[in-house]
């Protein structure tokens, strides 16, 4: 698990829990202890606020500040206004990077979303070997991202890997996927989907378990087939969950660094350099702190948009 999807999952919870929340009055404070002078309450949230200021708020401001200045290595130089942003948006690499991010995120989404939904439906449906199947479905996700990336690197190794043995015997030659741009991007996308689909599954599973028994009953009485039931009952019931899962997965993919870092480092020829990976490379390989900060602010903006979508759908929830 990584920091990236932690936050995203937290969002899912908040997003999805919204519907069931009772109004504050019912769950409010014991009336005797509620008063305007009750300032002590804030003592309880000071530590957590301090940690957040230190790790998130402060660094964000620092990043914005850095983006507005020239930098040499890690020294902040003169104020340069929006120069680094002008440079960022006139850089032809940016368009490519955004394109890569889109292909990577949407590609992984298109695989992980149906895989997660199907897995959840299957898991919800079977009664025998349920624990075994659940462990199987969760296995990839229990691994760390670093593990997922590196075991595929070894599995696809062009010289000694079993994948090469299979493709060679079929006459395709070795699976040298990480050295050509198109296949590298494809491989990284597939590995990410492979690793992340259980997360979609867990969210769907939670929602499926709340499908009212009457709905299933009525379907059984009507004698509708599996497909009929899926299209007319399960899918509409899951509509909001699907939106949430899409947002959660997109957030996860947009900020994915680890899997790309351990497999391709953004290469070859920057073919797998998504925006997040670009921030990493600009910071730790090119030492272009000002440029990295500008890219990071752009990434932050993308993230804000996704967050807003998530919050909006929480409010609109009707089911």
């Amino acid at each position, binding site marked *: 698990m990584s*920091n990236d999807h932690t936050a995203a999952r937290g969002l899912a919870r908040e997003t999805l829990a919204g519907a069931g929340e009772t109004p504050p009055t019912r769950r409010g404070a014991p009336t005797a202890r509620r008063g305007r002078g009750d300032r002590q*309450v804030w003592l309880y949230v000071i530590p*957590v*606020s301090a940690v957040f200021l230190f790790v998130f708020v402060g660094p964000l401001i620092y*990043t914005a500040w850095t983006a507005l200045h020239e930098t040499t290595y890690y020294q902040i130089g003169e104020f340069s206004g929006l120069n680094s942003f002008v440079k960022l948006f006139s850089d032809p690499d940016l368009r490519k990077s955004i394109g890569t991010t889109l292909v990577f995120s949407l590609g992984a989404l298109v695989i992980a979303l149906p895989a997660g939904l199907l897995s959840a439906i299957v898991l919800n449906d079977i009664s025998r070997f349920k624990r075994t199947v659940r462990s*199987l479905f969760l*296995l990839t996700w229990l691994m760390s991202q670093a593990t997922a990336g590196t075991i595929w690197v070894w599995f696809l190794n062009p*010289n000694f890997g079993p994948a090469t043995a299979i493709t060679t015997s079929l006459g395709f030659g070795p699976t040298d996927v990480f050295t050509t741009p198109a296949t590298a991007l494809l491989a990284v996308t597939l590995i990410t989907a492979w690793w992340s689909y259980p997360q979609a599954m867990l*969210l*769907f599973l939670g929602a499926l378990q709340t499908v009212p028994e009457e709905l299933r009953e009525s379907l059984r009485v009507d004698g509708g087939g599996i497909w009929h039931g899926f299209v007319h009952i399960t899918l509409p019931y899951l509509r909001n969950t699907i939106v949430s899962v899409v947002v959660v997965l997109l957030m996860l993919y947009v900020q994915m660094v680890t899997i790309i870092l351990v497999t391709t480092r953004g290469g070859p020829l920057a073919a797998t350099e998504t925006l997040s990976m670009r921030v990493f490379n600009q910071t730790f390989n090119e030492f272009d702190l000002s440029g990295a900060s500008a890219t990071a602010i752009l990434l932050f903006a993308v993230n804000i948009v996704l967050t807003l979508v998530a919050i909006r759908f929480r409010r609109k929830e009707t089911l």
Partner: protein
Amino acid sequence: MTASRPRQANHVLRRAPTWVYIIVSALIVLPPVAWIVSTSLKVEKDTIQFPPQWVPDPITFGNYTGLFTPTNIRFFVNSLLYAGGSIALALAICIPAAYVATRYRSRRMEALMTGILVFSMVPAIVVFIALYSMFVKTALINTYPMLIVVYTAIICGQTILFLRNFIENIPLEIEEAAAIDGCSRRQILWRIVIPLIRPGIAAVAIFIFVFVWNDFLVGTVLATTEDMKTVQNGIVRYITTGFGNFWGLFAAFIVVAFVPVLATFVAFQRWFIAGLTSGGVKG
């Protein structure tokens, strides 16, 4: 009797797609895993044999005993320290916050909690540039407390949300009764709320452990010296800096690094799943 046979056949037919799906999933999920386990049990020259052999022959545990180097042990100790420290710190700061956020709701409190949630969704890589360049200048880099604080901050938003769901389920009457009996707020939290949400605390602790254990990026960016790196850095180190034939050791390292997570999952499966889904998805 006559009716049951076609029905049974029908049942099997209806089940068929499900099991086909499960088998296909297994074929997609398992090969790389089996390959790693197989590699970890091979003698050095067999790991780079081509065409590859799936079943190691002879089987050796030499790769596992070969892992006991001071550097590798340090990786494991570090990860344990980071995980333990993060669990302690996150619980210490999140339980009080979750408690007052649930029981003393006000507009400002809600605003604060939303703020925390929104900030916890900021991509880690965005703040890492700043954290790195700030830490490098202040010698805070490569220190246990700093990494623990960063880990804690990343999981705090989720931890609070999760704990709030548990606290909400405590009947208010219990707390009111305690208040009438003269318990202070701190005593209510300590003597009533915390004992009642123990399962939630356990689930959160498991979740934090797995998160910190599996994280690669924080260790990569904020621990720059080898002696502060984590288990996940140890895995990748074989590929990035390894020379010679390291595949056997690499595979064994991956298996050993996965054992704690797998053991936690097997031992606490119910809480584990609860930690991941509950509080959760209500439709």
